[in-house]
């Protein structure tokens, strides 16, 4: 896997990224790359800047009043500085995102299908094409397409998260930004969503940037991991290596804090 991504252009490449609120920098990222069909974890605690990184990649940092400098490239194409119109084409269609609270990602007054179809149509599909794609995507995430007719309040957290993923699938997004997508879910539901993400990588070749404070989840799901603290990446590398032999004291501290089924060593 890693050998391949060394040869081809990375799907997503972040270099010299700084996200600021006024004069205060909340993210100072030297480099981070996401290869084709690769799952990279961004691990860190709250306040480490991981969510702001997601917003910056989506070009939405301005909506919370932050300024972005540096380079974010999607398939070699520079995203920072693009006009909003072009960013809107990319958002959802090429870079999809799912967030921690699935119930907050869907407008409660609309049926879930309505929101999905609107997004699909916005990216160029006709009404019937959109309906077909949506139904197909729902089946791929093991949900009945009938559920599209429900309102968000009528679906469980796990189901909503799957619908959000289905939307990314329907849009044939190449990159998925997943910001703590399973933190609010039960552990068995989490396992299913993680399996789904793995399958998306296998089947669709989707690259995933998986953001989480839960190191155990990152260890199970990701190929590589970057550990963030106070806006900076303190270390990154293949997940097995980082988890078994961390080089930075912070990473070691995080690992020591994870409760295991056998009790802590």
């Amino acid at each position, binding site marked *: 896997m890693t050998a391949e991504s060394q040869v081809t252009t990375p799907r997503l490449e972040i270099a010299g990224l700084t996200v600021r*609120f006024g004069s205060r920098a909340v993210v100072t990222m030297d480099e981070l790359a996401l290869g084709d069909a690769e799952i990279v974890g961004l691990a860190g605690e*709250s306040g480490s800047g991981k969510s*702001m990184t997601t917003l910056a990649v*989506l070009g939405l940092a301005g909506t*919370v009043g932050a300024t972005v400098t540096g380079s974010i490239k999607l398939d070699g194409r520079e995203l920072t500085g693009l006009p909003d119109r072009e960013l809107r084409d990319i958002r*959802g269609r090429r870079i*999809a995102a799912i*967030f921690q609270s699935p119930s907050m990602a*869907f407008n409660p007054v609309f049926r879930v299908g309505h*929101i999905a179809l609107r997004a699909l149509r916005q990216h160029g599909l006709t009404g019937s094409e959109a309906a077909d794609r949506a139904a197909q995507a729902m089946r791929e995430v093991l949900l009945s397409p009938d559920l599209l007719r429900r309102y968000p309040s009528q679906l469980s957290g796990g189901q909503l998260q799957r619908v959000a993923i289905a939307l990314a699938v329907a849009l044939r997004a190449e990159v998925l930004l997943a910001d703590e997508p399973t933190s609010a879910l039960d552990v068995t539901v989490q396992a299913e969503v993680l399996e789904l993400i793995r399958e998306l990588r296998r089947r669709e070749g989707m690259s995933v940037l998986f953001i989480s404070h839960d190191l155990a989840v990152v260890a199970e799901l990701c190929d590589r991991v970057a550990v963030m603290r106070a806006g900076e990446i303190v270390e990154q590398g293949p997940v097995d290596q980082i988890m078994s032999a961390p080089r930075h004291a912070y990473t070691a501290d995080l690992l020591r804090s994870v409760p295991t089924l056998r009790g802590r060593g």
Partner: protein
Amino acid sequence: MTQPMIAPQAVRPPQTGITRGQALRRRLTANPLLTIGGAFVLLIVLAAIFAPLIAPFPGDAGTATNPFAVLKAPSAAHWFGTDQVGRDILSRVLFGARVSPVIAIIVLAIACLIGIPLGVAAGFLGGWVDELIMRVTDIFLAFPPLLLALALAAVLPASLTSLTIAMAAVWWPWYVRLIRGQAASVAGRAYVEACRAAGISRLRIIFRHVLPNSFTPVLVQVSLDVGGVILTASALSFLGLGAQDPVPDWGLMVAEGQRYFTPDWWLVTFPGLAILLTAFAFNLLGDGLRDLLDPKRIFLR
């Protein structure tokens, strides 16, 4: 894609510790709403208190009339002009500060005194208490406010007191509703449950936790309502059901001055501006107080 929701912690600047006095001073200076609103309200209060001393023609606020100076435009002698019986409008506006805003404050004070306890009881205790209080409140709310005030004012002898009573009767149900929603929401929060679990008495929970946390919308509503009450009072006075001539009630002055508006615009304009300014001032003050009392705004960078 829909807008992402970010936890406030991710984007909020960190806070530091400084002394209480410094914090207060900083909040006051950083809070223009409070300063400007407070300044205006102070102005109105001062006008009300010192009217007899600053008004050029204090008698005009009472029964004095001056047939030789009827409907004079604003001039050096009469800054705001004179009205249809020759009274100095500036003096009447100044004395009016003792009438209209005071009525508004009394009405709203009564509305709060009735509305807040009922609302808190309904929201916090729930059950049949809630049902009973809300049904009674709904009955009052079912009447169009102005008509209800009219009906009440009509059966009472025309005076300022009746006006006040009539309007208080119309206003209190809104406060019950307002506080009830807040109180119910606060009552369900973890810290209230923690108090119940710790065996703290219900009365103490109400006074120490529910009331302070339900209060802010009331403050804002009161500040908005000051203007509303003054205008309603003026409508009732216009219909002859409240303030009577020669009381310098601003609303009454507007109502009476309408007839002369063209071309003698000053009879309506200056009392009207006074109402506007008062409503605006209390509005700003209300917003400012709300911000001042919000603990989360301490140590704003």
